[in-house]
């Protein structure tokens, strides 16, 4: 008996994750989805796992996707279970809409708690590494003592400047700059307010805080 998964109304990548889990546990799986992005993601999953794939439109924006295991599960695929690789997924909304932004919040000029000397080295390494990160953050927000990373004599100023040049939007909390009296010394990004900061954080697809 094929197992039926109802993934209607679920946001990407939930449908494909559910489909992957189901086909790992069952020979035949039917997945109900309500968007073509989910159909495409499951099609790619089927290719990767080497299982049979078919899709039928049920009308009213509902698709029925059938997966059938054709042999033993591909070893490599099983090992990675239940994680799904980035390449298998495409949650980008087609036709004009930008994917949800990737935001990094620098809330401290140290990384982690425990030892500030170590925390200082770690945050410097972290900011330097952001340059090589793929995908790159869309926005970096500096607040509280994180604004100290954006001053002219900061050890990561050149890294932040390079990120800004690469198109990363850097928001620096104005209240914090004022509090630490750093007004004249900010060397990168633009002074921002809590409205923008809260909005950016709330609208983030991913929010990373070191």
């Amino acid at each position: 008996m094929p197992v039926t998964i109802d993934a209607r109304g679920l946001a990407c990548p939930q449908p494909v994750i559910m489909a992957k889990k189901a086909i790992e546990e069952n020979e035949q799986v039917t997945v109900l989805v309500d968007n073509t992005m989910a159909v495409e993601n499951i099609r790619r999953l089927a290719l990767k796992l080497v299982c049979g794939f078919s899709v039928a439109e049920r009308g009213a924006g509902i698709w029925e996707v059938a997966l059938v295991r054709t042999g033993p599960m591909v070893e490599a695929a099983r090992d990675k279970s239940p994680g799904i690789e980035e390449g298998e997924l495409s949650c980008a909304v087609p036709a004009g809409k930008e994917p949800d932004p990737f935001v990094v919040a620098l809330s401290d000029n140290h990384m982690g708690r425990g030892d500030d000397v170590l925390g200082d080295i770690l945050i410097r390494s972290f900011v330097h590494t952001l340059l090589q990160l793929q995908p790159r953050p869309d926005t970096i927000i500096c607040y509280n003592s994180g604004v100290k990373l954006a001053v002219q004599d900061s050890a990561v100023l050149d890294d932040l400047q390079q990120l800004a040049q690469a198109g990363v939007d850097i928001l620096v909390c104005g209240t914090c700059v004022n509090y630490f009296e750093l007004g004249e010394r900010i060397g990168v990004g633009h002074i921002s307010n809590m409205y923008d900061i809260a909005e950016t954080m709330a609208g983030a697809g991913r929010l990373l805080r070191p």
Partner: protein
Amino acid sequence: MKEQRYVVFLFPSVNYALKAEKILKAAGIVHKLIPVPRHISSDCGVCLRTTEDKQQDIEKELLGKVEWDKVVLL
């Protein structure tokens, strides 16, 4: 102008790297503490990066004060 290549100084531990940084800061030699590049193996996670032309100055400055493991061209 020829583009400067970078070299990194690798240290036995983070504390050596920090000590070296302090000395170079005091001496006014431009450098940067960065995570050890992935392709170089080192027990210590951070290293000192500088341009190739400053390598000798740095070695002179650190000699007898801080040990380093090796210098690698990036």
